[in-house]
């Protein structure tokens, strides 16, 4: 049986363990051999996106040491997966790094493209707004992008359609950024917050009870705004919905 290494990004590990647990349980339900290598920390993206990619050598080596042995590496974060795909390089184990860049998958694309899941046994009787995270969408092509003249598809929608009772709401702007952007959220605080407020508003005016997506970082950002606005609407990682009921 193929061996799957579970990559749980640092902030999911620390702040959103439920997204990680749901990912693990979902993959186990599908009968897979899943292992969480305990020595993992982070993909290095927070440094690299801030212009400090040159500092990420040790982080990258650690990633390779933890994940090289697996057939697939799966993670509930489009952004971190994209970073690994585009920027994982090491001085001493570049062959292994190259291998990892090819076998690392974001959870949704792994479920749709590799496992070709057609019939999830999940139930979530709520109105849900789907946030398209930029790195998952424009980087990993999880959903067709509104800018392009090309046929529509959406891998997260394909999965959410299998969830009993779930009603997906329509958004006015289908794929606008939420303004998180890593360190952007503190360096460009004013614009970041305004982007987040606008994104949240689109979900609220269209009746969402939950906002979901394949990237916890965007959801964390929108959650921060929802809570400040004392909204009852909650954020939930897509893994938790696909694992619900």
């Amino acid at each position: 049986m193929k061996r799957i290494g579970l990559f749980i990004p640092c902030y999911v590990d620390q702040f959103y363990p439920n997204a990680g647990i749901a990912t693990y349980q979902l993959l186990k339900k599908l009968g897979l051999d899943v292992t969480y290598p305990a020595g993992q920390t982070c993909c290095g993206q927070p440094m690299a996106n801030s212009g400090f990619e040159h500092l990420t050598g040790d982080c990258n080596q650690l990633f390779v040491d933890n994940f090289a042995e697996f057939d697939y590496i799966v993670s509930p974060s489009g952004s971190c997966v994209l970073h690994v795909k585009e920027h994982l390089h090491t001085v001493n184990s570049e062959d292994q790094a190259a291998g990892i860049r090819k076998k690392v998958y974001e959870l949704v694309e792994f479920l749709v493209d590799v496992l070709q899941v057609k019939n999830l046994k999940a139930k979530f009787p709520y109105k849900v707004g789907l946030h398209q995270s930029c790195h998952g969408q424009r980087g990993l092509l999880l959903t067709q992008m509104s800018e392009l003249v090309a046929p529509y598809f959406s891998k997260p929608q394909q999965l959410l359609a299998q969830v009993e009772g779930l009603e997906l709401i329509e958004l006015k702007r289908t794929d606008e950024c939420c303004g998180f952007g890593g360190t952007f959220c503190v360096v460009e605080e004013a614009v970041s917050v305004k982007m987040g407020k606008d994104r949240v508003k689109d979900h609220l005016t269209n009746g969402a009870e939950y906002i979901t997506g394949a990237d916890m970082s965007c959801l964390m950002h929108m959650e921060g705004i929802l809570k400040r606005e004392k909204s009852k609407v909650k954020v939930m990682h897509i893994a938790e919905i696909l694992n619900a009921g």
Partner: protein
Amino acid sequence: MNTETKTHPELSEIFNKDEQRVNWHDETLWWIRQKRDKSAHSIPEWEMLREKASQIKNNALSNLADYLVSFEEKALANGIIVHWAADAAEHNRIVHGILEKHGIRQMVKSKSMLTEECHLNEYLEKQGLEVIDSDLGERIVQLAKEPPSHIVLPCIHKKKEEIGDLFHEHLGVPAGTSDPQILTEAARQHLRETFLTRKAALTGVNFAIAETGEFVVCTNEGNADMGAHLADVHIACMGIEKIIPKRKHLGVFLRLLARSATGQPITTYSSHFKKPRAGQEMHIVLVDNGRTIQMGREDFRASLKCIRCGACMNTCPVYRRSGGHSYNYAISGPIGAILAPNLDREKYADLPFASTLCGSCSNVCPVKIDIHQQLYKWRQVIVQEGYATSSKKMSMKLMNYTLSSPGIYRTAGKAGRWVLKHIPFAVNNQFNPWYKQREMPEAPKESFGEWYKKNVK
């Protein structure tokens, strides 16, 4: 407003003090993005056109020297006087020299981002010459003594009431006028007089054709034609990257330009200039101003493919909420943020960071510039060259130290969660920019790693 000393985050914060205005600015530009989408979707071969345009521009840049020589040769044969300017200062001196030679003190100008880049207006004004911008939006910001905030829509940041106030002050329309038709008519009368009396007209160039030595200027108001056809001297200024190899390539670019810019199928006027009419003098100034340096930067040379449509600004969620003036550079938005650091890394160190790297800019770009990838790469260059703040350097080193060791990471994570749970005010205070307008995530009782250790055998 003097914006020179403030950074993008500071200027954005000021812009965001009036949330209703930000909403208006965002909605206005988003409406243009939607017009662009509608227009692009009406062309089934849109993506192929973008690819074609991208390849033509790649070819043009790879053979730029030859195309420029060919262009000069043909232009000279057509009776045009050709000048070469290494930088902005030389460009300004050349234009000034031409005007001096003819004893001209007043000039009418149609929109040219290159002359904004070179600060030609300020230069000529210092020499005692008067320049009147004839593009309506450009004229409005000129009256307001502001730079354009957008390369295609220079006064997009101004409301019609504010334009009414400016026209009341400068053109004598009754106070409180805000009807666009009345305002436009007032500008039209004012500019008509200008067109009729100016002896020199300066235009920009959208495309210069190596094969024929002609150039094309795209406007919606016909103001380039009005200026050039009535003046004794026509000066056209262009960056050297405006070259396209053949006339037939216009069929690709003219289809893309206006659709990308405003959603129009084509600009109202696509004016072809090939030779001076009898008695007229026609000049072309070919300007480098850092372009050949950018050509030499492998990671950034594709930025020179830009045809200045402004689509990346209209789609940029940051630009729409920070305004063009927050970029402190003649060309704002994502494209400005990858062009400006070529000229001055220190001054524009903040611009590549004024992005979430969402990638929408690269998707709307009609010549497929990898804008967001270049933003990422400029960040690396800027940090490597030492333009990051020392607090940022410290925090990044600390972060790297923590994340490079699983033991330290676990301890730090546990400590962080403990602090959030037990002494939240240590984090939730005015020194935490996240907390200013957002709540911190709730600290869970255990990390995923701890859960896994306990529950999975």
